[in-house]
């Protein structure tokens, strides 16, 4: 009955902070209608409408509700606070960038389907709700909304074997992880009697030794670690990255990880706060294993998309490092890390999608040879992005890693930090290898001229970001700290 009362309390005050999500969802449904009625001819319109939707919704978010204190809404299902605001902004930026990367690709490839941008939009809605979930049900529903859209996207190139394989693998393993997640949630519900984050947190903090809930937490975390492709749940990543169409891979690499990470942060600082010690055990293992596996497995890769998959595995390991101490500084470091990582990956994919020889997209690293001579702008942009990803100063990637390690060292996790920096040296080898092929090797044939402005905007923007960040870092740092501190009130 209480729930019904809460539902009736829905009014403008509690709804207005959710304007971005509502706007995006409604726009998605309307555009789906347009697409269904008009068919293929509506693709350019839908594409630009999706872009405009993201943009307008993020403006709602940026200029709209700005209180950083938590506000429960939708009957306690969703919470809006500084953290969710900032995470949603990051997600919106990621969505805009991945949609920009889609623009020319849709035109060039045979995949002229209006569903693609709409699926981007729907998965986006799911991700937006993920970072503001305040209830295990909301968590599950939003996670599935985004995941289902992503499964379809992975398999969208249905006439190609590797695309369908990627979609199927992603779906089956994703379903498995959903099962784990649901099992964990049911355990938690069984042992605490509630699904609300706040209530679960309150009950767990009073329990002496909540063994059952701990097992539940382990399962929930396992389900989420699958989504961020942490070791040992990383197996799907290389295949899906390789098989999915490149702009979709870019989307996978850019946005869903941020959202899933937001969810992990919220769980660890909310319902599982009192279980932090136990959670840290899991995180230490996953973090170390991800950093090491991501670094070593990446060494043997020939396909650039697979390489990026392993790079993302190791990067998620680094991001997890920041959560070990359970302090606001660590969470702020993670938020910053995700932001910088997202920008760098977007830039890298923008370059990758511009690389073509005789109309064929290039994916093998050895085919990058001679890029430094034929198109220096792209080559040196990629060089800067890869140096930044391997954490070489003075680019933004270095500072992102720096704050993560600082948080880990401040928490006393010296061994993990040392393993982390050593793994980063190993990982820097494969980034360097790409640079070597581009700059040092002799060219093998001509590259096609890339005339896509949207891609160039993303590429140049990403490079500008990682350079400018070094000089004026304080705005983003402050925002990340503000967002993190809103979780610890």
């Amino acid at each position, binding site marked *: 009955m209480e729930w019904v009362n809460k539902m009736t309390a829905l009014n403008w005050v509690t709804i207005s902070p959710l304007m971005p999500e509502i706007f995006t969802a409604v726009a998605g449904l309307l555009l789906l209608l347009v697409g269904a009625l008009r068919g293929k001819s509506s693709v350019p319109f839908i594409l630009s409408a999706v872009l405009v939707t993201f943009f307008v919704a993020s403006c709602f978010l940026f200029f709209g509700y700005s209180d950083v204190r938590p506000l429960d809404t939708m009957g306690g299902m969703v919470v809006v606070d500084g953290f969710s605001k900032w995470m949603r902004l990051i997600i919106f930026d990621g969505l805009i960038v991945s949609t920009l990367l889609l623009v020319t690709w849709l035109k060039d490839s045979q995949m002229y389907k209006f569903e693609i941008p709409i699926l981007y939009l729907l998965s986006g809605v799911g991700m937006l709700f993920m970072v503001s979930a305040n209830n295990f049900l909301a968590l599950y529903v939003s996670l599935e909304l985004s995941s289902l859209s992503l499964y379809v996207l992975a398999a969208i190139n249905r006439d190609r074997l590797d695309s369908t394989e990627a979609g199927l693998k992603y779906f089956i393993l994703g379903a498995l992880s959903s099962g784990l997640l649901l099992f964990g949630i049911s355990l938690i519900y069984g042992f605490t009697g509630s699904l609300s984050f706040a209530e679960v947190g309150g009950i767990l903090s009073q329990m002496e030794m909540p063994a059952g809930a701990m097992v539940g937490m382990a399962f929930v975390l396992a389900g989420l670690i699958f989504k961020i492709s942490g070791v040992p749940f990383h197996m799907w990543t290389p295949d899906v990255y390789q098989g999915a169409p490149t702009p979709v891979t870019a989307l996978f690499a850019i946005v869903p990880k941020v959202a899933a990470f937001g969810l992990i942060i919220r769980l660890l600082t909310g319902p599982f706060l009192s279980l932090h010690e136990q959670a840290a055990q899991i995180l230490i293992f996953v973090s170390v294993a991800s950093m090491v596996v991501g670094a070593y497995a990446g060494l043997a890769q020939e396909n650039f998309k697979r390489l990026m998959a392993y790079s993302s595995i190791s990067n998620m390991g680094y991001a997890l490092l920041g959560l070990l101490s359970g302090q606001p500084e660590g969470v702020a470091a993670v938020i910053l890390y995700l932001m910088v990582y997202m920008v760098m990956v977007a830039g890298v994919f923008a370059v990758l999608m511009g690389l073509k020889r005789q109309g064929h997209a290039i994916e093998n690293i050895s085919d990058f040879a001679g890029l430094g001579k034929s198109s220096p702008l792209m080559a040196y942009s990629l060089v800067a992005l890869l140096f930044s990803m391997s954490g070489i100063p003075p680019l933004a990637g270095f500072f992102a890693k720096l704050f993560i390690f600082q948080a880990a060292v401040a928490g006393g996790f010296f061994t993990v*930090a040392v393993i982390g*920096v050593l793994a980063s040296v190993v990982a820097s080898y494969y980034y360097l290898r790409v640079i070597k092929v581009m700059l040092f090797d002799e060219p093998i044939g001509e590259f096609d001229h890339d005339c896509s402005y949207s891609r160039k905007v993303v590429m140049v923007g990403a490079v500008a970001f990682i350079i400018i960040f070094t000089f004026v870092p304080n705005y983003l*740092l402050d925002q990340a700290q503000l967002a993190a501190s809103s979780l610890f009130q």
Partner: protein
Amino acid sequence: MNEFPILSLMTFLPLVGAALLLLLRGEGEAVQFRAKMLALLMSGLTFILSVVMLLNFDPAEADFQFVEKRIWFENIGISYHMGVDGISLFFVVLSAFLTPICILASWKSVSKRIREYLISFLMLETFMIGTFCALDAILFYLFFEGVLIPMFVIIGVWGGPRRVYSAFKFFLYTLLGSVLMLVALLAMIVQTGTADIPTLMGADFPPHMQLWLWLAFFSSFAVKMPMWPVHTWLPDAHVEAPTAGSVILAGVLLKMGGYGFLRFSLPMLPDATAYFAPMVFGLSVVAIIYTSLVALVQQDMKKMIAYSSVAHMGFVTLGIFTLNIQGVQGAVFQMISHGVISAALFLAIGVVYDRLHTRDINRYGNLSKNMPIYATVFVILMLGSVGLPGTSGFVGEFLALLGAYKVDTITATFAATGVVFGAAYMLLLTRKLVFGPKVNEDAAAMSDMTVVEKAYFLPLILLVLWLGVAPSYVLDRTAPAIESLLVQYHAKLATEVESNIANVPEHSQEHVQIKEQDQMPLQDHAQEHGMGE
């Protein structure tokens, strides 16, 4: 105090030049020439600024001068803090001095992708000068590591046949050492809440923590120096790098390790320094003797000079860890002198390499006949490298050995044998290259040095001789900073021992006292003093 931000200007002027080069469009001779002129102009201006700085430097002052401090990362304790003292002063000048010479040396010999080449060198200059000026630990690390990017590209793109292997080895070796230093820096920052180097110098760290921190710093600086047994990247990098790359590598990059010891290990971690000093002594002696012997059997000229660099750096580490004024003075002087001599030697090898395209010693001979000026230059440089009195090489080696002799006679005796070996391989090289029988027609037909080559060798030769006969210009300026460093070091060591005896359990708790009150008035006074002048 000078309001004029001369250090920032020197640091970022080359970067501005690099940005301007990026804007330069087109190919062809004219554009290439313009690019070279622009790079030369920017690095030349930087050098002029460095001379202005040198002339305005107050020699009596032990503290940091030309200090600039701005907020960079709020709330985290990282600031943009620059300044030079007697220790870093000459390294800054050396960096600014060698870069225009490098650009001149590559005027003819490098033709492919000249614009990128020049951009790399200008970036390198920014990072080098920044490393020596930075007074914030993270800022220091940023420049220190940033060097890897342009150097990797320089070796990899414009290097010799095994350039890729060498570039990777150089990059990964130095990165592996440095990331451990990063963790140590972070641990220090977390303990004290600041990354400010002068403040960190006043901080006390618990002795057992110092041991770990020291090892982490050592892993970085020892690779950069490079000390035996982690020196193996250096010969490879030298052999494959283009001439100008070798010049910067030997002239400046190797000094970053020694500078790091003086800036971080000694003042911040005195207990650990005292604890590990015998180990460094041992490694230095091994480096001096072993690498000298290795140099003796090299057939590749660049490799021989590279191994001799490792041996000379052995004198530097020896000198630093004597922890007395003669030893440290000698180490700093040796670094500066080696910066000039080895840079000039690599340039000299570059001169003949440009003509014959081989570095094999046996292919050359009797160059004194057809290249008399070159032969003269080479002999002077050889004598400087050997450490003949009257050249700059003598002063550094002598002081370092003197310092070592005061601490440990046996070590000093062994190290002194290295001087003999050094003479042996350098004389051998000179005999084969400059004198000796005529071996090849093409070697005998090589023309003597061009005007440009003469132009950039002249200042180098003059420096070698001037530093040899009037070392006091350098020593007077380095002395106050080194003295205050050592006084602080020994004072800290003494108090540590006292408090260790008086209150043992206090140190088992990891707490750090910042002696800010002791430090600040001194600094303030010093700055006022500086302003008055």
